[in-house]
C-alpha cells in the first residue's frame, strides 16, 4: 500500500510534455529514501565477517595498488606529497562517483517489484544509491584524515571548501546515473557497455596521478571532464596542490548541466517505467 496524497485530491490523467519536478511529493516520501539506502547498506554487509569494515578496506586497497603502480613503479611526481595521499584522495572521489553511476544503472531493474506494484516518485531509487555512496565516502574520508595526520599533512582552513567538490561530484554522478538508469529500463545494452565506459573515464581522470603530469597540450581535455575538475579541487582543498580555477569553474557548470539534464530526462521517462520494465 502506498499512501499517495495527504492533501485532498489526486488527479490521474495522461501527462503532457515534461512533468514538473513534484518536489512536494518527493519531500513526503523522504523516509522511503532513507529506508532504501538503509536497506542496501544493511543487506550489503549481511553474512560478511568484516561487515562495515569493508567500507574502509576497499578504498585502502585501491589506494595501495595505485600508489604502488603510479608512485613506486611509474615514479610520477607528486608535488612533494606522499603518493598514497594523492591516490587516496583521488580514489575517494572516484569511488563515490563510480558507485553512484554503477549503482544507478541497474537500480530500477533490481527494484522492478517495487516499480510495478507501488507508486512513489521513482527518482527515489537512484537517489537512495547516492545516499548510500555518500555514507561510504564519509567512512573512507575518515580513513583519509587519519592517513593525512600520520603523514603530517594537516589540511588548512580550505577543508571547509571541500564539500563544494563533493557537491559537484554528486551532481555529475547523479545526473549521469539518472540518465543511465532511465535508458536502461528499455535498453539493457547500456548496462553492458557502462563498465567499459567507466574504465576509460577512469584513465582520463587524474585519479591515481596529479593532472600536472599530463602534457600541457592535452590539458584542455580536462575542461570537459567534471570529475577531473572535482578531484583537482578536492586535492587543492585538502592537500594544497595546484588548481586551475577556470577549469574548476567550467567543470562545475558542466556538473550542474548534467544534473539538470538527468533529472528532466528521468522525470520525463518515469511514467513509462512500469509498462516497459
Amino acid at each position, binding site marked *: 500500500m*502506498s499512501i499517495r496524497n495527504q492533501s485532498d485530491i489526486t488527479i490521474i490523467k495522461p501527462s503532457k510534455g515534461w512533468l514538473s519536478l513534484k518536489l512536494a511529493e518527493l519531500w513526503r516520501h523522504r523516509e522511503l529514501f532513507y529506508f532504501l539506502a538503509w536497506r542496501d547498506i544493511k543487506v550489503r554487509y*549481511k553474512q560478511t565477517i568484516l561487515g562495515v569494515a569493508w567500507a574502509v578496506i576497499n578504498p585502502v586497497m585501491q589506494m595501495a595498488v595505485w600508489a604502488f603502480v603510479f608512485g613506486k613503479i611509474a615514479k610520477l611526481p607528486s608535488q612533494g606529497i606522499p603518493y598514497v595521499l594523492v591516490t587516496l584522495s583521488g580514489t575517494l572521489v572516484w569511488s563515490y562517483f563510480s558507485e553512484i553511476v554503477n549503482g544507478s544503472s541497474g537500480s530500477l531493474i533490481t527494484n522492478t517489484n517495487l516499480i510495478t506494484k507501488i507508486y512513489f516518485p521513482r527518482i527515489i531509487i537512484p537517489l537512495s544509491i547516492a545516499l548510500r555512496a555518500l555514507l561510504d565516502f564519509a567512512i573512507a574520508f575518515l580513513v583519509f584524515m587519519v592517513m593525512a595526520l600520520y603523514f603530517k599533512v594537516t589540511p588548512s582552513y580550505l577543508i571547509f571548501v571541500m564539500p563544494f567538490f563533493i557537491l559537484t561530484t554528486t551532481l555529475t554522478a547523479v545526473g549521469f546515473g539518472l540518465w543511465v538508469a532511465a535508458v536502461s529500463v528499455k535498453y539493457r545494452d547500456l548496462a553492458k557497455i557502462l563498465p567499459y565506459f567507466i574504465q576509460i573515464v577512469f584513465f582520463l581522470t587524474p585519479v591515481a596521478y596529479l593532472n600536472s603530469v599530463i602534457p600541457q597540450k592535452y590539458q584542455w581535455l580536462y575542461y570537459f571532464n567534471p570529475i577531473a575538475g572535482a578531484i583537482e579541487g578536492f586535492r587543492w582543498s585538502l592537500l594544497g596542490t595546484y588548481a586551475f580555477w577556470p577549469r574548476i569553474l567550467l567543470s562545475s557548470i558542466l556538473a550542474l548541466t548534467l544534473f539538470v539534464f538527468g533529472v528532466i530526462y528521468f522525470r520525463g521517462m518515469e511514467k513509462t517505467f512500469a509498462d516497459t520494465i
Partner: protein
Amino acid sequence: MNDIMIRAENLGKMYQIGETIRHDTVRDAISQFFSRTLRSGKRNNSDTIWALKDVSFEIKRGEVVGIIGRNGAGKTTLLRILSRITEPTEGYAEIHGRAGSLLEVGTGFHPELTGRENIFLNGAILGMTKREIKSKFNEIVAFAEIEKFIDTPVKRYSSGMYVRLAFAVAAHLEPEILIVDEVLAVGDTSFQKKCLNKMQDVGEQGRTVLFVSHNMPAVTRLCQRTILLNEGGIQRDGPTHQVISAYLGSAVGTSAVREWSDLRKAPGNEIVRLRAVRVKTEDGQISETIDIRKPVCIQMEYEVLEAGHVLVPNYHVFNDEGIYIFITTDYEPEWRNKPRPVGRYISTALIPGNFLAEGTLIIGAAISTMKPVKIHFFERDAVVFQVIDSIESDSVRGDYAGTFPGVVRPLLKWTTQFKEQCEKVI
C-alpha cells in the same frame, strides 16, 4: 463535504503489442512518422491493444466495491492506473483522500533482512511514517503471530509466516481509500479469515475499498457493489449478487430464470414442452443467489400437449467444475404413474438449506417417461445460481474461513458422549 471518493471518466489504457522496440534506425523512425501523419493521425490498430477503454464510474465514501472479470478484462490495469503505477492513455480520474494500494503482499520484502527490519522497510514502502510504524509495531507482530522470529532473517521463514507478516504490515496501514488486488489468494486458511475480517473492519469504519478478486464468495461477503469488466470496458455495475450471477451466468449463457415465449422453439416434443425454469427462494422470489442455510426452489413450468402420458420431471444438478452432483425426480404420489391431461403444470423441487456446497450450481431440467424410457426433453444448463456461505458461523463451515472442499455441504446431526472416568488400561 463531497461524498465521492473516486471518480473515473473515460479511462483508457493502450499498450503496444508485438515488438516493443521500434525505430531501430533513424530512417525507420522517420518513415514511420510520415506514414502515420499521412494516415491523418490514425494509429495502426494491428499493433496496439486497449487494455481499458471508456471506463467511467463513481465510488462513494464507505462503499466496498468488488471488481471482477476474466483474465485480461482490464482489472489489473484499472488498479494500476488508480494506484498511479501507470498512467492512463486517455481519460481522467480523481481520488479524494489518502489512498493506499495493496497489489501484492510483501512488496519490497528483502530476504536477508530480519522480520523487524522488514516491517520498517515495508511500512515505509507502503507509505507509513517511521513514527506510525513504531506505534503499531507490536500490533503488527501480534497480528502476524511471529513474535519468536522477529529477529530472524525472513529468508528462514516458512512461506506462511512470510505472508502473515507481509499482510500484517499492510493491514495496519490506515488509508481512507484502500485498493486491493487478489491478495487473499495467498496464506493459510485460518489466516485468511483474519484478513477477511480485517478487510471488513476497514469497510465498516467508513473507509472506501476497491477489491479485485476471482474469489466470488469473498467478493459476495465483502462488497455491496461490484463492477464487472469485460474486454477493457464495464459490462455491468450494480449490486454484487446481480453482477456476480450475470458474470457466472454469462460463462454458461444462463441465469436464474429461463423462459420460452415461443412454444415452437421451446425444448420438448409433441407430448410436452418446457415453458420456463426458475430458481426461487423459499418465499417465492426469483434469486440468483441463495444463502447456504436457506432452501432453494427449482421450478419448471411446462405444457402437456397430448393427454395420456405418464411424465416424470427431473433435475440434474452440476457444479461449476462440471461435477454431476445429483439427479432428483418427482416421485410424489400426486402424479406418480398417472397419465396427465392436457394443460399447464408447474413442478417445484425443494433443495433443503445446509445441503449444497457454496459456489455456482447449474441445473439441467428434463421430463421423461419411464415405461418405456423416453426423454421428452433435457435442457442442460437451464438455470444457474449461486450458493453463498455466510461468515456468521452458523453454517457448516462454522468458524473456518478457508477453502472448504466437497461437492455437498450437509449439516448433519452429531452426538458426542462424555464418559467421566477413563477406563484403566491394564
